[in-house]
């Protein structure tokens, strides 16, 4: 039987897939979640087969319910995003002690022991303050494509404080600044500063041990990365595919279970 394992991270904004074979990552991809989550899951899994699937992210329970019946993927399990990101980050950076994951609707900070065991985590409550969603809203308000928003903000010539972290109120504050004739780049910088400040205080509550791995889609935003580096006094490590760290961690969890099982069978 194939020992191929795959991890799927069903987030609010994107679905990531990582397929692990004998030799490591065989295949990976990321697609937008859309409103039809299961349809996207099916599309992502097209042509994929394995003996174990591990789901994580917001849609993990839905996935379990839909694909949990024995079939193409063998067994299906789920783990929380906290474990998945910790496992994924440690695989990419074996000495990592802290993980910051800013996704579409959640921000998480995870502290690990030197051995890689999760000891504490902080997670935002239901509000979108300081998440990818916040950036998405603000990019729209400033008519900038989301993937260019960070670079746009780096064109600021001064730093304005935006005091509101509430997505709706921050937009109001930005609108007020626009009406006062403030440069859009400076407003964008103010919004990025607001997020970085909030994330730093979350990290502060956990206590940041370096190295810090920055995962999740927002890690692609160069302005957030630079502000965090300034604020924390250390450069976060950024994976090549930050939005696949959760899926990688989920797949690794599956691999670990398989090898534990086969070692038991060997005994």
């Amino acid at each position: 039987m194939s020992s191929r394992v795959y991890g799927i991270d069903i987030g609010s904004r994107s679905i990531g897939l990582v397929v692990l074979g004998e030799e490591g990552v065989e295949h990976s991809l990321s697609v937008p979640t859309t409103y039809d989550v299961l349809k996207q899951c099916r599309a992502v899994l097209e042509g994929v087969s394995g003996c174990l699937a591990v789901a994580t992210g917001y849609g993990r329970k839905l996935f379990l319910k839909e694909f949990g019946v024995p079939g193409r993927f063998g067994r299906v399990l789920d783990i929380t995003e906290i474990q998945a990101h910790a496992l994924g980050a440690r695989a990419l950076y074996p000495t990592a002690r802290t993980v910051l994951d800013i996704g579409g609707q959640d921000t998480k900070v995870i502290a690990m022991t030197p051995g890689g065991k999760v000891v504490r985590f902080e997670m935002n409550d239901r509000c979108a303050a300081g998440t990818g969603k916040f950036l998405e809203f603000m990019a729209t308000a400033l008519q900038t494509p989301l993937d260019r928003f960070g670079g746009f903000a780096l064109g600021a010539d001064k730093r304005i404080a935006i005091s509101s972290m509430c997505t709706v109120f921050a937009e109001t504050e930005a609108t007020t600044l626009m009406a006062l004739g403030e440069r859009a780049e400076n407003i964008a910088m103010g919004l990025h500063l607001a997020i970085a400040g909030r994330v730093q205080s979350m990290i502060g509550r956990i206590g940041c041990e370096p190295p810090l791995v920055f995962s999740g889609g927002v890690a692609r935003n160069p302005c957030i990365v630079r502000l965090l580096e300034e604020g924390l006094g250390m450069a976060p490590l950024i994976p090549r595919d930050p939005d696949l760290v959760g899926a990688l961690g989920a797949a690794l969890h599956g691999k670990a279970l398989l090898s534990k099982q086969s070692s038991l069978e060997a005994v």
Partner: protein
Amino acid sequence: MRAASLERFDGLADRFLADIEPLKEAGALVVGIYCTYAPRELVSAAGALPVGLCGKKQAPIPAAEKTLPANLCPLIKSSYGYAITGTCPYFAAADLLVGETTCDGKKKMYEFLGAVKPMHIMHLPFATGAAQEAYWTQEMRRFKEFLESATGNRITEDGLREEIRVQNEVRRLLARVLKLSSGACSPLSGLDMMAVSEAKSYVADPRAYAAMLRDLAAELEAMARAGQSGVATGARRILLTGCPVGRGSEKVVRLLEESGAVVVAAENCSGVKSFDLLADESGDPLVALARRTLCIPCSVMTPNAGRLSLLDRLTEEYRPEGVVDLTWQCCHTYNVESPMVQGHMLGKHGLRTLHIETDYSEADTEQLRTRIEAFLELL
């Protein structure tokens, strides 16, 4: 397996109104109460019927928010929403209401409620000590006089002492039932535990309720002896602390148990906090009631060292593996106490605490599920 006697508790709240009908017809007044500080013994001694009022569901909150600010605790908004929408049958049945000035939000809500039904306010001191006890005894006396004049019945010392004895017996039996969860395999899930203790607020006859508790205790004790458990083996043992929970606001307890944990003890005032304290059955009964309630380690008290010592005791007795501290949004006193509780539980007992701040809505259910599952993974 679930104990068979539990079924009798499930329907108690629904049967309450039918059960009190003949008593109402015979002229008994119904007194609606909100909080553990309310001395139900005085109500019964006046020949009236105490009943817990609704305030644990999301449904009436939008109506309440027409008057009350949205950033107020859901318990207050829900209570008020039920009162003004006429959707709480117990509120509808109540002739009188009693409120205690436990927190700022509630005491201001009572001012609005007073316009809906006759309302008596008891002014609660926020500290223990001789002066506070004397003052609170005086508040007991004022409530006694209010009840006497409303019902036309005199509350005798002997009558009151008898009600204290009955309520003490109920508390002893509840403690005996809950105590069974301290064993290795709890015969009772947290949700069942909640239902059993909550039923106390909806019984027409506390003596009959005591008899039911006695049967339940006996059945559970037999289950425990036979090694039969009401929960899955290997479930993580959780100590719940913080704000009260009940039917309708059991979201966090449900998520914990769905995620493979079991609430073995609830320190909150819907749990052990209030069953733990007995009133003195001799001496001046008003002083006994004042003394008992003033010792409740509610976060409105300052300082509130009693909560930490109760947590210490529950930790020793129930051997939890983790602590969940639940705060309803905008419940400032419990929210402020949270870091203290977390530090104490970790420092003294090496136990991690998950602090959850939420309301009665289902909006954050999946988010909470992730946090709860991740917390259980850490234990």
